[in-house]
């Protein structure tokens, strides 16, 4: 099952819908052995019928055998809303191996959309942004909506700089229902600024989670001697030495990750660091954890 969640394996699959089905089905097959999680169609418990309960939920088989009316309860029987915010700026095109950060985000977003629409019957929307909102798919759970989401993800290409303020402000006007907002980005910005931009999304009781997607080369760069680095977004050049990259830079990237995690939790925002060479199950697990917590 883990092999099917390996980004390198998924990268060889051409269709994003097939990727999503492969990821989610494999992931769900693994989860069936766990008692911690349930899906909206899955049975949770029986409870005695009380006046006012919907008669459609009465288990008539039990009533016939025991002559008592019980109400059958399922996980997630209350439909939710999932908004996926995908950063498609130039820096997301960086890749030290076969899977770029944007491709990895595509896999996660597709899998989450598949999981939400097919399994949880949640309304799912998508925002692709860079310095502006480049693509927007309103939340919906109707038939065929998943294909719209996947098509929009396929169109996303890395370009332009990153700006969190404008796209998230734009998104606030569309968040009418209570749900989840997943922001997927490399988050190359000062952590307080990121959190300040994301915090308004928590209106209407939304749960917000940040998936910081980084390439392993960004966390542990491999530089021999001195190298000239070019910023993918600004085009700026900087000569760096091997010693600096292996010392000072690692300290700074680790501090940046830690600061963002701390600032997010302090603001009641979920945070998770994803590396593009790791399986996608962590992201799905995080989603289900939040989904379960909401039930």
């Amino acid at each position, binding site marked *: 099952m883990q092999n099917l969640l390996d980004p390198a394996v998924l990268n060889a699959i051409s269709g994003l819908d097939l990727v999503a089905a492969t990821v989610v089905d494999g992931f769900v097959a693994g989860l069936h052995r766990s008692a911690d999680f349930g899906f909206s169609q899955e049975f949770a418990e029986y409870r005695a019928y009380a006046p006012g309960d919907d008669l459609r939920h009465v288990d008539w088989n039990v009533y016939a055998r025991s002559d008592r009316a019980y109400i059958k309860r399922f996980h997630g029987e209350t439909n939710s809303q999932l908004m996926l915010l995908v950063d498609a700026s130039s820096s997301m095109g960086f890749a030290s191996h076969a899977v770029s950060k944007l491709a990895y985000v595509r896999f996660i977003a597709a899998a989450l959309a598949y999981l939400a629409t097919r399994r949880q019957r949640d309304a799912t929307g998508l925002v692709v942004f860079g310095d502006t909102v480049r693509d927007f798919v309103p939340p919906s759970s109707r038939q065929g909506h998943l294909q719209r989401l996947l098509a929009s993800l396929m169109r996303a290409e890395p370009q332009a700089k990153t700006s969190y303020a404008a796209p998230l402000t734009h998104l606030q006007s569309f968040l009418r229902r209570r749900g989840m907002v997943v922001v997927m980005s490399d988050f190359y910005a000062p952590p307080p600024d990121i959190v300040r931009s994301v915090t308004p999304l928590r209106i209407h009781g939304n749960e917000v989670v940040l998936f910081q997607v980084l390439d392993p080369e960004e966390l542990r760069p491999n530089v021999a*001697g001195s190298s000239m680095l070019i*910023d993918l977004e600004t085009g700026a050049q900087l*000569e760096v030495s091997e010693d*600096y990259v292996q010392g000072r830079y690692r300290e700074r990237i680790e501090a940046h990750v830690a600061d963002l995690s701390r600032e997010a939790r302090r603001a009641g925002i979920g945070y998770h660091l994803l590396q593009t060479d790791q399986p996608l199950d962590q992201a799905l697990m995080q989603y289900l954890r939040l989904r379960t917590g909401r039930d």
Partner: protein
Amino acid sequence: MGWLAPGFLLGTLAIALPVWLHLLKRSASQPRKFSSLMLFEPQRRSTTRRRRIDHWLLLLLRVAVLLLLAAVFAEPYVRGHLPGAAPAKLLVLAVDTSASMRAGTRMADARRDALAVVAAKPRDTQGQVVSLGSRADSLTEQVQDADVLAAAIRGINATDARGSFALLASLARTLAAGTHMPIEMHLFSDMQATGLPPDFNELRLPPAVTLVLHPVGEAHLPNWTVESVAAPSQVWDPTKTRIVATVAGFATPAATRTVSLLINDRLASQQSIKVPASGRASVVFAAPDIPYGLVRASVQIDAADALAADDRYDFVIQRSERVHGLFVHQSSDAATGLYFRSALQSAADAAVVLDEVTVDQLHNRDLSGYAFIILSDIAALSPAVETRLTNWVRAGGRALLSAGTAAAQQRRVPVFDAPILGAHDYTRDDIRFASIATVDEAYAPAGALAGWQGIKVFYVTRVDAPQAEVGLRLADQTPLLLEKTLGTGRVVLLSTGFDRLTTDLPLQPQFVAFVDRLASYLSGRGTRVSALSVGDSVDLRPDPRLRGSADVLAPDGTHPLDLRQAAQVRTWPLPAAGFYALTLADSRHDLVAANLSRLESDLTAASPDTLKLWQASSDRSAPAGSTAAVTGAPMVRDESIHNLWWYAMWLLLVAVVTESLVASRYLNTQRESS
């Protein structure tokens, strides 16, 4: 420590190349794209410092290679003995053989001192013997065998040549350029002051040369000499001949000297003159009895001084009959003949008798007795007369034609055989006259005369003679004086006339000299000098095309030319004083006299200060105050020069190998890390 060729140290500037290459390589890393530089600090110096330090060893090795390479070429040296190394040097023994070394025992003293230096020479030191006369001749190779050097020294004798110490400095520079050893050059000479060149820079020695001077003889030795003799080289009337001899004394007291004139080694006249102290006096021999032909003449004094070679001055006089020339003019033109004859008679040595005839009288004239014929502006010649004239020229005669206004009416110039293209009358132009713009200095009748540019030419006949030699040319490039060879004779054409209507030349002072030179040239007398100096060259082959053999009979009765020289050599330097009987390539016979240069007669030695300055010019010689070097005592140096270029070469080799190893290791590290 010093450098034998310090100019090569400029090569050390090349160390900028590896430094630049290292810096270039440092900044030439391949750019890599990265997602964001937000977390990198923009402090380039701090991020690249370690990289520079990593390559210090390689950079230092490369710089060392270049420095050592420059050092090898610059040839470092140190003074003093290197441990375990024998001092190596080249000992050059230069013996002055100039004429002044004939005085007293100077030559014997020089040989004795040179042999002493050879005897004291270390066995493994190379030596070379050089004679310094009119040129510096190496008498031996660079050898260690003292016997070879001593034998060469014993064979050295004084010559009649004029010495110049500049030759020794030139030899020192040549030797220094061809050897890596320091050179110790010993000069055995009378240090004659007149042997020093006018420019002291010619004496400058290279740094690798140590000059040791061995003066011989007295610094001030009295000497009388026949300094000069003024005598005509050609005489046809001895009664008008005057021979003036000047006797000079150098460092001499006032004295009375007897001066004798010898003609063909027989006493012709003798006089006594008083020569003041260190002064000069002249004596005149008038109307000596000179026989016909080439005569050996000498003036000698009874000096009884140290240098007898300059007490005699030899010269040659040629006595001959006057030659006859024929001046042919139009019957209506008597003025040009008057001009020409007057100019000839005005010349200092009027050796030509000029006969004048009209063109009509030329028919029955016997031409065989004339040395030359002048046709002055002849309008026309009968075919018979022109044929006679042409045949006379072809047989070796020489003719001059002037083409004035009358000749310009014809279609061709007779005898000269060139078509006439037309005439140019400059008086009808705005410029009124033409000037002479080009003079062929090598053309005897015109080349040596000055003032041609002031001559005005009013009328000129233009002829078509592309093969002719042009001696004078007008400003518009019209030839004015041309010459053609016809058979074995020559024809000269003046494309204007001798009258005042065509040119103002007859009115100018140059006319007399021009006519005199023209007559001498046409009569074949040429210009000869009565005496030469030792070292001067005589022309044995006046016409290089001549295939004949030349010969020289030297004063000692020998024939110094070998077969190859006799058949090929064109000029030959006179090696010693005396009379030389020459047989030229054209079978003519000549006699020349050579005398040693009178600069050798002043036996005064150069001042010690000058000699010290010369020694110090190399910066390697004895200190300026050292008396040992000037007094001739062999200089015993407690320090010697050791060239270190061989050690620098070894260090260079080690540096190159080390650099290769370090660079290879560095490249391997880079390959593995990439």
